[in-house]
C-alpha cells in the first residue's frame, strides 16, 4: 500500500448561518487518501461534501478533529493544496495568461521562466491562442480549463475539485472529463473530487466515497477496479455499468432520506 497523503480524523463541522439555526454539516468523519490516488466524493445535496473540501483547503475553521496533508496539520489555505471551483473563480480583470501567472508571481523564478511555464500549461489545457483573452470572452468550458491550468501550474501536492464540471453542458463535460483523465495520467496528482454525477465519479476515480444525508458521514466506499489509462471507451463495459448501479443505489437511499421521504 502507498503512503497516506491526506488524512481526515473525526472531523466535525457545524455551519452557523447569519440567521437561523446552526446546521450540523459533518459528523465524526474520518478518511484516508493515498498518494497519487484519485478519490471522488458523491452524496445527496447538502451532505457536506463541499464543506469537506473547504476544510481541507483551509478556508473554513476546523472546530473538531484533525486534517493532515503529508502529516502536517491544515490550518490555513496554502499552495500545497490547489483548488478548482464549480464556477471557475477566475480573476475577471486578468487575461488568461495573467490568471495562469498569478500563482507563479510569488515563486522564485525569472519572468522568462514564468512565461514559459504558464505557456506550457495553457497549451496543456488546449487554450493556445487565447492567452490574451479576458475570461468574459470565453465559454464555460474554456474558463474551467483556465482555472485548471492556473491551479496545476503551481504544482500543488493535492488537487481539490469542487464539482468542477457541474456548470457545463453535457458535451463539454464529457470532453473535459477525458482531458482531466489525460492530464491526471501525466501529473498523477492526489485528487479529491466532489461531484453529483455518479457516472463521472466512476469514470475518473480509483475510489468513490458515498456520503450520507446530513449530518455528513461516510456511508460506504467503492473501489473502482477499472483498467487505466482510461477514456470514455471504458463507460461501455459491463463493469462500469455495475459500478454506476451500485453507487446510484447507495446515493439514492441517502437522497430519499435527505428529501424527507425515508428515514
Amino acid at each position: 500500500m502507498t503512503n497516506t497523503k491526506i488524512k481526515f480524523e473525526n472531523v466535525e463541522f457545524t455551519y452557523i448561518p447569519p440567521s437561523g439555526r446552526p446546521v450540523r454539516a459533518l459528523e465524526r468523519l474520518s478518511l484516508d487518501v493515498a498518494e497519487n490516488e484519485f478519490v471522488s466524493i458523491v452524496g445527496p445535496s447538502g451532505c457536506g461534501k463541499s464543506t469537506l473540501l473547504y476544510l481541507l483547503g483551509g478556508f473554513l475553521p476546523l472546530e473538531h478533529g484533525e486534517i493532515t496533508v503529508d502529516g502536517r496539520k491544515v490550518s490555513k489555505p496554502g499552495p500545497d493544496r490547489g483548488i478548482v471551483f464549480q464556477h471557475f473563480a477566475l480573476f475577471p480583470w486578468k487575461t488568461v495568461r495573467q490568471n495562469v501567472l498569478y500563482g507563479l508571481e510569488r515563486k522564485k523564478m525569472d519572468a522568462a521562466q514564468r512565461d514559459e511555464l504558464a505557456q506550457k500549461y495553457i497549451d496543456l489545457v488546449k487554450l493556445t491562442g487565447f492567452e490574451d483573452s479576458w475570461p468574459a470572452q470565453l465559454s464555460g468550458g474554456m474558463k474551467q480549463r483556465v482555472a485548471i491550468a492556473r491551479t496545476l501550474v503551481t504544482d500543488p501536492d493535492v488537487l481539490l475539485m469542487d464539482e468542477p464540471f457541474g456548470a457545463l453542458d453535457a458535451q463539454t463535460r464529457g470532453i473535459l472529463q477525458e482531458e482531466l483523465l489525460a492530464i491526471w495520467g501525466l501529473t498523477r496528482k492526489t485528487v479529491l473530487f466532489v461531484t453529483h454525477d455518479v457516472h463521472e465519479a466512476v469514470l475518473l476515480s480509483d475510489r468513490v466515497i458515498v456520503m450520507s444525508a446530513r449530518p455528513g458521514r461516510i456511508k460506504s466506499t467503492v473501489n473502482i477496479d477499472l483498467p487505466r489509462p482510461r477514456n470514455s471507451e471504458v463507460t461501455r463495459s459491463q463493469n462500469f455499468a455495475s459500478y454506476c448501479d451500485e453507487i446510484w443505489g447507495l446515493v439514492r437511499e441517502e437522497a430519499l432520506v435527505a428529501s424527507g421521504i425515508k428515514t
Partner: protein
Amino acid sequence: MKKLAIRYLPIALIILFWEFASRAGLVSQDVLPAFSAVMVRLWELSAGGEMLVHVSASLLRISSGLGLGIIVGSALGFLLAASITAQRLIQPTLTFLYPLPKSALIPVIIIWLGFGNSAQIMVIFLGSLLPIVLGAYNGAKGVENTLVWSARSLGANAIETEYQVIIRAALPDLLAGIRVALALSFVLLISSEMVGAQQGMGFLVAFLGDGGDYAGMFAGAFVISAIGFAADRAYLALYHHLLRYREA
C-alpha cells in the same frame, strides 16, 4: 452621422425656440435674454480672462474636495468591509450622516473655515465621502468567497489578497460610487460658492445675477453645465477603460 443629427436635433430646436421666444417678446428679455445675447456675453467674459479665473478656482476646489473624498472614502469603505471592529466603531456615525443634506452644512462650515478655499473643499469632501464609502464597502463585501479562496490557495497572503483581489474586484462598485460623488460635488461646489466665496463659477453666477446682468449669468450657467457634462463624459470614458475586461 445621421444618429448624431437625431441626438442633437432636440437641443438645436430648444435653442432656436429660446432665441425666437426672447426676440419675439414672448418672454421679457430681462428675464430670459436671447441665446445669441448669452453667447456674446460668454465671449466677452472669456476674452477678458475673467471666466478663466473663476473656472480655475472652481476646478481647484472640486478636484481637491473630490480627490480627498476618493482617497479617504475608499480607504474607509475597504476598512469597514475588512474589519468588524472598524464597522462597529464608524458605522453609526455614517448612518447618522447619511440622510443629512450636505448643503445644510455649508453655513456652518463657512463659519468654521472662513471664506477661503477650505470651506468649499470641505463641503465637497464631506458630500462625496458617503457615496464613495458605500461603493467601496458594498464592492468589497460583495466579492465572491471563491475568488478570495483561489488567491489564498495560489499562495497569496491575507494582505496580498486584500490588495490584489478584494480591492480589485470591488472596483466596479467603487467607480459607480465615485460617479455619484462627482455629480454631487458639482451641486455642492456651486451652492457653496454662491454664499461663501469671492471667486468661482457659483460666485460669478450669483454676482452677475445680483447685478442684473442676466445674459452674463446665463453664460456662467452655460459654462458650468458644459464643464459638468465634460467631466461626466471623461469619467465614463475612464470607467469603461478600467472595466474593459467586462465588455466581451
